[in-house]
């Protein structure tokens, strides 16, 4: 079986991760009525024989006995992980997948990366190898973390480096939650920029997420539901923010809705690799098609629809609305407007009862309003997966390699420079073994270079007027 291996690192990473496992189970339960351990399940879960008590051998076929997530949960504080282990997902993980400590990283990238990285390196490698042993084909690694803190940011990017060293051919996808301007962690710009350098150099694909965007989406849904504008009721479990139908029994916490969005992103991203469809889209294909130059690997994502109404019939107008929404700035998971920036490439992964003609009709319709770089005027990568998400008849995940990420990076740089110029809080970092001033200057330099690459692309947005002349053949 081939699998993807998620690493949840830090508080945010684990909270999102937890939602991800929960919703993944819900998704598979909805499709897998007979309780058979199938190929789709095996990409994220092992089937373990626990009948004789404790951890038995893996069962590769037949009925589901006990599902264990293929994952590594890493946190330098115990709170979140403990909660997971006491909650309804406790049987989905075992202690061999956890790496925890008690005191946390103090919102300090250096503590996460240099201190804990060094300390836990062997442990992580060993547990990674053990988990990978169970896979006969490891297709990619996912890291889920936030950029602004200490563990997710520092230790998370340390793990990224490790993965590259240990398994250089396996793709590394990173889902990174970027801090907002009003983030209450003062040093979040430092942590984020230090982490960015690692992402620039060691990640194959990064899906940046901004809390602000998640928050806006949650609010939008709230308003929609409460305004009474909707003619019919919304299907509860269809909300992109919902945990309905999942194992969660406790009242939803404030971040749950936002974390569910990110969890759904990951589910949709991997859906075509798990379920069948008329045009499959694998994770390695995403990297191949959306990364034209190695460093430009930041993909802006959007999910639609945000909810489904309870009435069943979906006229094609509503289907087309789904495509339109995917390009609106309201649906992007970072504060960005791809329509007004430059596309390098775009991927559309559709789930459910959607056929190639629907895809083509919408691409033709939307193309004129989008700006694509001159050498990739028809830069669309498409996938059709037959199985829709729970509560929906169809859904769309759009991934854009677009210069609209630039403002996020520029703002980050500005916030960094505000602190750095005054050398505020630097000593907290510099006294950690292995940290030097050059770490900071290299990191900001890496970010500046990246911004410059996007600037260059934007500068020639119109592209050269004439196509390069073709090879001439002597007749």
């Amino acid at each position, binding site marked *: 079986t081939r699998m993807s291996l998620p690493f949840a690192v830090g508080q945010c990473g684990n909270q999102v991760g937890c939602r991800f496992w929960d919703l993944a189970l819900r998704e598979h339960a909805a499709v897998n009525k007979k309780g058979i351990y199938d190929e789709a399940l095996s990409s994220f879960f092992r089937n373990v024989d626990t009948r004789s008590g404790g951890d038995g051998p893996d069962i590769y076929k037949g009925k589901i006995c006990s599902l264990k997530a293929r994952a590594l949960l890493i946190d330098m504080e115990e709170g979140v992980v403990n909660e997971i282990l006491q909650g309804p997902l406790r049987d989905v993980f075992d202690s061999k997948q956890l790496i925890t400590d008690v005191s946390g990283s103090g919102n300090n990238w250096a503590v996460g990366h240099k201190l804990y990285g060094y300390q836990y390196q062997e442990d992580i490698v060993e547990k990674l190898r053990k988990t990978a042993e169970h896979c006969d084909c490891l297709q990619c690694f996912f890291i889920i973390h936030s950029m602004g803190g200490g563990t997710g940011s520092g230790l998370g990017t340390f793990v990224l480096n490790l993965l590259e060293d240990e398994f250089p051919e396996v793709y590394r996808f990173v889902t990174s939650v970027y801090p907002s301007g009003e983030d209450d962690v003062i040093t979040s710009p430092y942590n984020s920029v230090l982490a960015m350098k690692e992402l620039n150099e060691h990640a194959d694909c990064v899906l940046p997420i901004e809390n602000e965007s998640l928050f806006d989406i949650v609010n939008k849904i709230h308003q929609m539901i409460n305004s009474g504008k909707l003619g019919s009721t919304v299907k509860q479990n269809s909300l992109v923010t919902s945990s309905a139908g999942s194992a969660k029994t406790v009242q939803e916490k404030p971040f749950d809705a936002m974390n569910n969005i990110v969890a759904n992103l990951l589910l949709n991203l991997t859906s075509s690799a798990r379920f069948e469809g008329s045009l499959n889209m*694998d994770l390695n294909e995403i990297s191949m*098609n959306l990364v034209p130059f190695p460093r430009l690997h930041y993909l802006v994502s959007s999910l639609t629809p945000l909810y489904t109404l309870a009435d069943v019939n979906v006229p094609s107008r509503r289907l087309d609305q789904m495509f339109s929404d995917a390009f609106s700035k309201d649906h992007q998971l970072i504060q960005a407007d791809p329509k007004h920036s430059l596309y*390098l490439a775009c991927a559309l992964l559709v789930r459910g009862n959607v056929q190639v*003609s629907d895809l083509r009709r919408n691409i033709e319709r939307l193309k004129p309003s989008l700006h694509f770089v001159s050498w990739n005027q028809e830069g669309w990568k498409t996938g059709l997966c037959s199985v829709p998400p729970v509560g929906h008849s169809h859904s769309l995940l759009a991934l854009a390699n677009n210069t609209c990420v630039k403002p996020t990076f520029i703002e980050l740089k500005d916030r960094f420079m505000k602190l750095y110029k005054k050398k505020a809080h630097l000593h907290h970092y510099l006294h950690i073994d292995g940290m030097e001033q050059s770490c900071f200057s290299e990191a900001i330099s890496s970010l500046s270079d990246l911004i410059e690459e996007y600037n260059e692309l934007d500068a020639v947005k119109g592209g050269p007027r004439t196509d*390069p002349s073709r090879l001439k053949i002597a007749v």
Partner: protein
Amino acid sequence: MSIVTVQLGQCGNQIGHEVFNAICSDVHGTHGLCSKKENESYHDACQERFFSEEESEVPVARAVLVDMEPKVISQTLSIAARSGYWKYDNRSHFCQKQGSGNNWANGYSVHGPRHKEVIMNLVQREAEKCDRLGGFFTIMSMAGGTGSGLGAFVTQCLRDAFPTSFILNHVIWPYGTGEVIVQNYNSVLTLSHLYQSSDALLVHENDVIHKICAQLMNIKQISFRDVNQVIAHQLGSVFQPTYTAEGGLHYSRNPLGDLMETLVPHPEFKMLGLRNIPQMPENSLAYSTFSWPGLIKHLRQMLIANAKMEEGIDWQVRPPRLGSSIPSSHSMNKPLHFNTSIANLVILRGKDMHSVDLGSFRDPSLYTSWLNPQDAFNAWKTPRAFNKYEKSASLVSNSQFLLKPLDNVVGKAWNMFASKAYIHQYTKFGIEEEDFLDSFTALEQVISSYTIL
């Protein structure tokens, strides 16, 4: 003689499956509209070509299924078996887990060599099951990584292992507006490599078939399955048994050989296009009648005007006037949009095809001057109707049909190559810039050759 089909990648396997379906359903259909004896001969000839009789009750397709990820093959095998009319040999497939990632270099340089032995063993096994091997028919898309890259590698291996066998590659041209962003790179690499090892490339363009589905078949929400079924119908119309000689007593036994002989007189010209008429929704068939003269007239105009289907044909296009002593390489004599042919093959299926006048296809002005028109044109026929169509006419053409699409793909790929976008994804697996340049050069040569016809 038997044909061994090699289905490569998702597209190749999905289409291959529809092809065997179409062939089977044609043979078992009650619309042969001919004598029982004729029907039996047809059935036997078809059986020999595509199926082997094994201990199982249902015929077993002579096919090898190859993919680098498991889902499609698994589906294909089970759906075929469920039909009850035919199935695949349970051992004739090979797949891996991780896919080729739409990366031609991955398919060609990594998966190819790694799995060469296993794949060629499966092919050898199928070849040995044939009393007489008539050649190989490979089905692949140019856009992705497996069909295209691994497909190009396997074709080379077939050529090396079976130097005297015929190899026909069925190649799917992706939609112009991407299915895959790097499809133009993958296409250029595929075509240039296939040109070296294959005998001929038979091309279907997704955009064209899509239009047929929309405008002729009246399908509202077109799926890949719809597209594949039209393709399968068109392929069936070429490969089902026919009499290749006038007054022939037996169905031809060497379809691939016959095809190559009639259509590929020169190794520089291997691009074959296919047209089939009429095409319409099944429920309209009962209300429609066709005449051979009408069908021939349309088909000929489709040829010279390069029309992709029987609607929207430009009837203004006329063949150039002959009698000038200027050699045919000067295109000034011909209207710009006139489609010049090297060789054509018309296939007629249905009753009364004996009396059909095909003189209009023998008009020398349709062809380049370096073949006798008698040699440049051939007709295959059978009174046995095909796939519920009372009359069906197909044209397989070695002409400028594919010149514009080829030029488009090379142009777009070159444009992208100039910016060096995505090249690092290929060099990672051993395909360097020089390899790209070689491929571009090879294809510009092909374009040039077809242009000056």
